[in-house]
């Protein structure tokens, strides 16, 4: 019954026009970035390399597909949460607003199974978004800009990664980015269980992300104890895969923090959904 319900959720997501906003937006944004970089990418790169040009000389195709993928991932990972929340925040509250939740919950399937099937479908949607972004950022970029070594500017300096050493880093980086988006999908699903309309969970999710991001970036000592535990602190953890040596402990720490968030949020969502009186 769980998989039948999950299949139903896939059908619903596929049939909703809002589901295509995310894919469309990613395509448009990546398209704009690639277009702009094709026109004036060298100027952009020279900003990054300017401080090293006196001591280093750069040769070869610096403005390559790998650099584009890195720039795209860095730019879009901040905006993708809104696109994910647009769909996952609607999974329960949308049914309440439409009134279909009454029919859904009078079927011989447990509420836990219904919510988990929605969750699995929401995660699959998130995966499709990140996969599409990966295809555009890595595949299309390489077609347009070709292959080459990747230069990454970190707080500790410039890291140059050879092209043969990059693909696995992107796969790992996109996987960690996916985990952080799943955390956001779980957060919006949890809000969705508390709401009777679609807008509330989306706005609430974005509000939490903005609030946590501000707390995370505000250089005030009072926030130091909580900063490592905010999921937004670990949204950019994918970048760690482009450091040398690889900060394994930091990566594991980020994965654990994100997984704990997912587990706690999912527990709250299940608790609320199982005890909710359906009055809509």
């Amino acid at each position, binding site marked *: *019954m769980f998989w*039948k*319900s999950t*299949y*139903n959720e896939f*059908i*619903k997501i596929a*049939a*909703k*026009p809002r589901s295509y906003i995310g894919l469309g937006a990613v395509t448009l944004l990546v398209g704009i970035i690639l277009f702009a970089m094709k026109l004036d990418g060298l100027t952009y790169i020279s900003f990054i390399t300017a401080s090293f040009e006196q001591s280093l000389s750069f040769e070869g195709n610096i403005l390559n597909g790998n650099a584009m993928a890195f720039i795209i991932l860095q730019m879009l990972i901040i905006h993708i949460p809104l696109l994910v929340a647009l769909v996952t925040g609607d999974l329960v509250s949308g049914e309440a607003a*439409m*009134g*279909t939740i*009454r*029919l*859904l*919950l*009078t*079927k*011989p*399937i*447990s509420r836990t199974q219904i919510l988990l099937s929605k969750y699995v479908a929401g995660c699959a949607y998130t995966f499709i978004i990140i996969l599409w972004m990966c295809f555009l950022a890595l595949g299309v970029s390489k077609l347009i800009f070709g292959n080459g070594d990747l230069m990454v500017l970190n707080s500790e300096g410039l890291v140059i990664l050879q092209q043969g050493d990059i693909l696995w880093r992107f796969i790992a980086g996109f996987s960690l980015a996916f985990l952080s988006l799943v955390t956001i999908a779980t957060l919006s699903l949890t809000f969705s269980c508390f709401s009777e309309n679609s807008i509330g969970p989306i706005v609430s999710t974005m509000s939490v992300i903005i609030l946590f991001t501000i707390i995370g970036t505000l250089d005030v000592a009072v926030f130091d104890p909580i900063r490592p535990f905010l999921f937004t602190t670990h949204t950019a953890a994918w970048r760690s895969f482009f450091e040398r040596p690889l900060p394994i402990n930091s990566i594991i720490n980020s994965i654990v923090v994100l997984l704990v968030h997912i587990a706690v949020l999912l527990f709250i969502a299940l608790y609320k959904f199982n*005890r909710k*009186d*359906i*009055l809509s």
Partner: protein
Amino acid sequence: MSDTPEKIIEVSQLVKYFGKFRAIEDVSFDVYRGDIFGFLGPNGAGKSTSIRTLLSLIKPTSGIIKVFNKSLINDRNFILSKIGCIVEKPDFYRYLSAEKNIEIFARISGVSVSKSKIHEMIEFVGLKGREKDKVSGFSHGMKQRLGIAQTLIHDPELIILDEPTTGLDPQGIIDIRNLILQLRNERNKTVLLSSHILSEIELIANRMVIINKGKTIIQGTVSELLNAQTVVVSIGVDNKEKAKEVLLNDSFTEDIDTSEPEHISLQISQDQIPFVNKALCDHGVNVFSIESKRKLEDYFLKLINA
């Protein structure tokens, strides 16, 4: 073997609080196999809350709910697999076709449902030819019919319809009423039908309960409840005093109200009406109109007005 029909629903001392607000105080009723059971009460009486509790959409504060002789708490999925329902208005996924909507609900109904069965049900409710249309373009009446198709798709034993005629035009009301009768007569379904309109229940139900302010007021068979009551007859006459004298002399009743202009009112049984009319005419009292109202209807109206 006992002739008593099997009890399908047993609700006893149901109570539901929302915070401090008491939505249901004490609702009890029984539904037997083969019943078209009327669940009657004015708006806000607690009908929808009771039905939602029965379908596990709302958790009761206290009370016992048994369906098919099983506890709703322990055997929820078994019970729901044998129930088809419409709760308030039939809402569907507007962005999907009628057929896809039925498919979605059929898939999680606990039985395997074929495409041909889906088409059969859509045809049964009179929506043949519209199965590929998106529900967003459906009228309320069409959604109601689709709701009944959804209700029947897994061949449930018990059908629960919460105010199924609300918002329908007169033809729609007649169609739904005929569909409900078909369900009982041709498909042997047990139907629980909620309404705030007595005449609607009276027309199709064989048993009923009246609830008000979250409490069961009365329950029994419709014929018992209606026949046990005398009717209040209002007769338009040209001479009220003479009419009263005639009726008192002929011992129809002693309780005759002459307060209304050119009308007398009295409580008699339904079958006495022609004799009253004849007696008045025989004694030269001209009768202009006879209007009868059941006491139960008055009683129900009093509930609503209260």
